[in-house]
């Protein structure tokens, strides 16, 4: 077991009183910690200014410093006030920062939204043909539809929205883009499922002409197969044969002329 040197748990009070205010603050804090840490001093004591020699010397001589309750209270209150103020300052700083960011976002959103007059016209479902603002709408999704659609509930947040169309004067329909890809892919997946389960591997399917050919074979008066000629078969071979025939004819003509 290591014998630890007793720490300089006590800073001589004279030293404390004489020094300047900031120093005294520090040391008051240190004393504060010191006072607290008094019963549990040892290896786990707070790090303090180590004045080994002095500590050794003054341990015996000095009596513990006496502080009035009032001064201690004042100090504590000072401290609390300081802490509070710093917290408040931090909070306000944070608030300002957040506000600035929000404003920035709102401005960005506004820039991306359609101009106000167009939104108004859309919401009131005007009959007139509205001029598109350039570059704001994705043209790929504008289509002419004849279906009544409900207006999107959150008009501010959506980039573009489904609009209520009244009467016969509908020239375009705005669609919400978010979720459209998901819907399309789901529909495609569903169609692929049906196709796979009915016509995919493992099903016992045959082509129509084979089916009809079998039927013709079973008729009381037997008929030929449904598609006897497969015109797509051996196209390359047929082309080669044609070319060869032409060349052979030419050669034959030449030799016969001679």
């Amino acid at each position, binding site marked *: 077991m290591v014998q630890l040197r007793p720490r300089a748990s006590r800073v001589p009070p004279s030293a404390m009183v004489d020094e300047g205010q900031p120093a005294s603050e520090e040391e008051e804090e240190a004393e504060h910690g010191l006072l607290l840490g008094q019963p549990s001093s040892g290896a786990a004591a707070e790090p303090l200014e180590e004045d080994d020699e002095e500590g050794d010397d003054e341990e015996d001589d000095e009596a513990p410093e006496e502080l009035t309750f009032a001064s201690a209270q004042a100090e504590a209150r000072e401290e609390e006030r300081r802490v509070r103020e710093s917290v408040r300052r931090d909070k306000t700083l944070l608030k300002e920062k957040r506000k600035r960011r929000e404003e920035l976002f709102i401005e960005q959103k506004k820039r991306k939204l359609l101009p106000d007059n167009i939104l108004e016209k859309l919401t009131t479902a005007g009959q007139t043909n509205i001029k598109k603002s350039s570059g704001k709408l994705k043209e790929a999704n504008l*289509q*002419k*539809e*004849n*279906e*009544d*659609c409900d207006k999107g509930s959150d008009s501010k947040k959506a980039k573009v929205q489904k609009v209520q169309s009244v009467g*016969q*004067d*509908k020239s375009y329909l705005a669609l919400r883009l978010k979720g459209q890809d998901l*819907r399309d892919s*789901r*529909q495609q*997946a*569903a*169609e692929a*499922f049906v196709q796979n*389960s*009915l*016509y995919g591997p*493992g*099903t*016992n*399917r*045959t*082509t*129509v*002409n*084979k*089916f*009809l050919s*079998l039927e013709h*074979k*079973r008729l009381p008066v037997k008929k030929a197969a*449904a*598609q006897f000629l497969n015109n797509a078969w051996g196209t390359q071979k047929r082309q080669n044969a044609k070319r060869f025939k032409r060349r052979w004819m030419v050669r034959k003509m030449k030799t016969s002329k001679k």
Partner: protein
Amino acid sequence: MGEFKVHRVRFFNYVPSGIRCVAYNNQSNRLAVSRTDGTVEIYNLSANYFQEKFFPGHESRATEALCWAKGQRLFSGGLNGEIIEYDLQALNIKYAMDAFGGPIWSMAVSPCGSQLLVGCEDGSVKLFQITPDKIQFERNFDRQKSRILSLSWHPSGTHIAAGSIDYISVFDVKSGSAVHKMLVDRQYMGVSKRKCIIWGVAFLSDGTVISVDSAGKVQFWDSATGTLVKNHLIANADVQSIAVSDQEDSFVVGTAEGTVFHFQLVSVTSNSSEKQWVRTKPFQHHTHDVRAVAHSPTALISGGTDTHLVIRPLMEKVEVKNYDAALRKITFPHRRLISCSKKRHLLLFQFAHHLELWRLGSTVATGKNGDTLPLSKDADHLLHLKTKGPENIICSCISPCGSWIAYSTTSRFFLYRLNYEHDNISLQRVSKMPAFLRSALQILFSEDSTKLFVASNQGSLHIIRLLEGSFKHLHTFQPQSGTVESMCLLAVSPDGNWLAASGTSAGVHVYNIKHLKLHCTVPAYNFPVTALAIAPNTNNLVIAHSDQQVFEYSIPEKQYTEWSRTIQKQGFHYLWLQRDTPITHISFHPKRPMHILLHDAYMFCIIDKSLPLPNDKTLLYNPLPPTNESDVIRRRTAHAFKISKIYKPLLFMDLLDERTLVAVERPLDDIIAQLPPPIKKKKFGT
């Protein structure tokens, strides 16, 4: 009758889209059929199975479920995730509400008719309340792991069976939680790698849940204990649809091989009270997957990928055993998709997303009766006009002079001007068409091509005057009594004075174009009109109805003609009335006022009003008598209806000039050759 050169046209590449869902409405005896391109058609089963209304399709609208709610309201749900309600009066979409669950796979209306249940891709079952003008989301049931492919209500409305992939859940409606989860074997007594997809469920009132799945099984489950009761393996391929009758004593299932099976609840022995479900009848009327079946009180209805709609009346349920109990197969459209310009010999074909303009070939050869003449000039594909946008084309027309083409989709109306220089053709679009012209149900040009008549789905008729490169709106006839009744057919007289419009329930209206007012109204008949035409000089309006009655009404005299009264008194020949397909076009000979030419899908007929009418005993379909037959036989068999069945199936037939006819045929094999692949069937000896 005369001799005609007939242009036999087979280059109209018409392929209808497959049937995806079928829904039967008991109160009005109507059938709603939805196809894979998004079209929804309404057939009136009591009016001789005539297609009276339709909603044009849309590329993104792939309907997966269709159902009727209380009060004749039609709802559909599709893979775009939206629930759509259709307005049957105005023939447009009332609204489309997103269910926010991803693609919708199934939909079911509660037995009381006020709640709507929707099964979605993400495994959630959503309950909607049907309010008088809209639907409102109520709540979600417990979310399941995989997509909900089929739904069925218990007749009391307390429980729901939902079929998913590899399992069936039974929910309690009040709490919304799953009461039972029944796991389905992937293969009948075996193991398979492919997942078992429950294509259809049905909930009976005694608590039995019937499920049909992709392994070819029909299984009966007990919903109280959640256990399998009975297992029927009926096919090697998927069983894709199920429909239960109202009395719950029979149900019908459709398989991917094209077979439709009928199951019935029969007693075990002849006098015991115990009953069991027995597979009674197989029907093979389809070649491809049967994706939708319905069970009406007297008939089994099935439709699938091979585009036929088959209605099979059940013999034990039919009271009177007459021709009504025969099988009905609806293959060809009930409206005209082809228009013709007589002066320039042009044909305009209407497809779902484009129009094609063809010029007929010509020949200089002559021959005898029955000869095929060689073409000196082939038929020419002049124009392929694609429509912009995802919507289907509703109707189209070409003017008789061939210089104007007009067509309409749900949201726009297009008018084009054609210019012919030597052999070239140039197209110019007339811009800024007025908005009230869109969603037109019928477009017609006047004989001199100066006026355009448009019947809109709001019930109003618009008259537009066509000028060189532009147009002027002349007049609009508003619907009469404030009710909106669409499905108009139009006919204009060749002298340009009269316009006839059908579709209003009050009968056929005839308007005077010169004075722009209503002239008279033909009295209403309880079957819908299938074709209208006005004769050249006599201005007789000939109307054909869906029950194969033909009326002739004289417009100047405002009454039925003598001939019409005679034939109504005598009645048509019974074979004439037993024809399956409606008459879609009527035309006249310019020089012979006593002849009316009409056709349906399997015959064309020239009615000669000067000859005597046939009674039930005479032969209706008499072949052309050879000239060396005796006069007596010819006199005995001569009657007014000269019917020929040489050209079939006919989509369009018209008289081009005095000696030329054009017949557009569409052989069934050519349609079948372009359908998706069917299931392979192993047959003995092949």
